[in-house]
């Protein structure tokens, strides 16, 4: 009986892998690698584009709930077909290009942005044996792909020849450069501990159990701090509230993609959400054990369900934060990046190294490492707070 149930669980877990294998095995041997790769790619693109559509409607309904209104509820049951209506609308809308715009760069910018946003998904394991490529330097690849997004943002902002889009692009690039540093430094702790840059290896290291609890890195002090820091930096990297200055609807209207309309606008929108989904998925891979279950008695739940459940939870947190926090000012944003995030991530590196060498049992290690993080955190926040001198604001161009 037990073996039967585990057999069934295993089948449910591997159902997509088996299905792909069944399709591929009917083809001639020469075509097999190509078709296998194409099936996986189509799967990744379709699933995450679908998730993007779902996220937009979740976000609008969730924000509506938080702001005491209904949100979209006209198209389909509970308004869940809203993304389809939006898609048709953006496809049929006129594509306007400003006369002053740099035509070629203006056209290429959304292409570069969306292509770069999709590249990162190649190394994210969405389930057991479900990863497009297991690269030896997977995490490095992810950040390399992410750095190309900045170029797309700049291309959009510069080619539109509009001061709003240029301001938005400048803000976006400055923000992305600043927060890329803590993002990478926060993930280095995991790379150091796992001893590998391969996302598959990192998840496999976390899919082990002591008693009933999994070895997720988020359960260690440095992992918890790293996860929080990583998520703050990820929010800034994906230009979401409270770090949405590059878009700042009330000041620069929509930032770098103000001069885009129709489907190109939809592509920017998609690129932004895909970036958010990809960094969330990387956070899951690095800190939340990827596709593994938190407790050993839940391992019968298929791995891909765990992965997408975690992803939707993180997306909910993003929506929650957006509905809660006000937008930061530019100097506050930079101050947070360089005065708080950078020292804390560097400290976290030392704590992750100490975690390995502190003698004693697990409680001792936990206590020592947590103290190493909490005390400097308290001192740093106190120092940053005392630095602020509250005074009457003076405005340059207003009363």
């Amino acid at each position: 009986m037990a073996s039967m149930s585990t057999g069934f669980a295993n089948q449910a877990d591997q159902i997509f892998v088996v299905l792909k294998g069944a399709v591929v095995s009917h083809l001639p041997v020469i075509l097999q690698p190509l078709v296998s790769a194409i099936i996986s790619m189509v799967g990744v693109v379709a699933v995450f584009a679908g998730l993007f559509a779902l996220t937009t409607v979740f976000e609008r309904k969730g924000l509506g709930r938080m702001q005491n209104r209904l949100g979209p509820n006209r198209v389909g049951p509970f308004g869940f077909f809203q993304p389809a209506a939006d898609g048709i609308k953006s496809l049929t809308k006129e594509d306007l290009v400003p006369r002053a715009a740099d035509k070629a760069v203006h056209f290429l910018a959304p292409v570069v942005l969306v292509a770069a946003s999709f590249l990162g998904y190649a190394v994210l394991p969405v389930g057991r044996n479900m990863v497009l490529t297991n690269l030896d330097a997977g995490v490095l690849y992810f950040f390399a792909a992410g750095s190309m997004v900045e170029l797309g943002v700049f291309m959009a902002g510069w080619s539109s020849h509009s001061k709003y889009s240029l301001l938005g692009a400048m803000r976006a690039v400055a923000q992305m450069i600043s927060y890329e540093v803590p993002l990478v430094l926060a993930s280095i702790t995991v790379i150091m501990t796992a001893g590998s840059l391969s996302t598959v290896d990192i998840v496999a290291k976390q899919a082990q159990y002591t008693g009933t609890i999994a070895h997720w890195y988020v359960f260690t002090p440095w992992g918890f701090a790293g996860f929080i820091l990583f998520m703050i930096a990820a929010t800034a990297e994906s230009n979401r509230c409270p770090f949405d200055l590059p878009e700042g609807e009330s000041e620069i209207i929509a930032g770098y993609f103000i001069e885009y309309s129709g489907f190109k606008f939809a592509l920017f929108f998609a690129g932004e959400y895909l970036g958010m989904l990809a960094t969330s998925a990387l956070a899951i891979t690095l800190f939340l054990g990827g596709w593994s279950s938190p407790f050993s008695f839940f391992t019968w739940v298929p791995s891909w369900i765990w992965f997408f459940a975690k992803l939707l939870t993180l997306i909910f947190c993003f929506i929650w934060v957006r509905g809660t926090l006000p937008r930061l000012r530019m100097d506050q944003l930079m101050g947070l990046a360089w005065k708080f995030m950078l020292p804390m991530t560097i400290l976290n590196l030392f704590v992750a190294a100490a975690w390995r060498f502190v003698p004693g049992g697990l409680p001792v290690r936990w206590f020592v490492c947590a103290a190493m993080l909490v005390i400097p955190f308290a001192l740093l926040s106190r120092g940053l707070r005392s630095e602020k001198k509250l005074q009457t604001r003076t405005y340059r161009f207003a009363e």
Partner: protein
Amino acid sequence: MTILFLILAVLAIVGASAAMAFRSAVHAILSLALAFVSLAILYLSLDAQFVGFTQIIVYVGAVAILAVFAIMMTRSDSAHHHSEVFSKSWLTGLVLAGGVFTVLAWAVLGDKTQHAAADTPAPVTTVTQIGEALMQRYAFPLEIMGLLLTAALIGAVVLAMPLLSNKSAANPAAKGDAR
């Protein structure tokens, strides 16, 4: 000489030449980024993952972005400012480039290990091995480089920081009016 190599070689050469030929600085940087990316994919096709990804992170993610950032900050967009594509000192440049090419070609052709390496399979280098080499054998040079970069960083901060005695001249209102 696979098809992939030919495509990448053409892209890299076209990108690099376009970077020199474009009048607009932004176009030049974007085509330079194209050349960088094709070089990175070339490294990847040679199984050098670390070098390939680092090429993208450093050259596209940092160098190209730094250049476009400088353009956005200074707004010295030369799209409407017509200057000659060929500078007056093109002959000197040509001689220098030819000299560099000759030296490099001489070094490559004179390398005896190259012919032997063609028969034996290329060694598999993982990121782990590179990391171990950097942390053990080349730890000292790595530290020196870290020190150098830290010094450069502090220098940049010192340059950007308004001088204490010069405080009144550096306030934002005065700067804005001057511009």
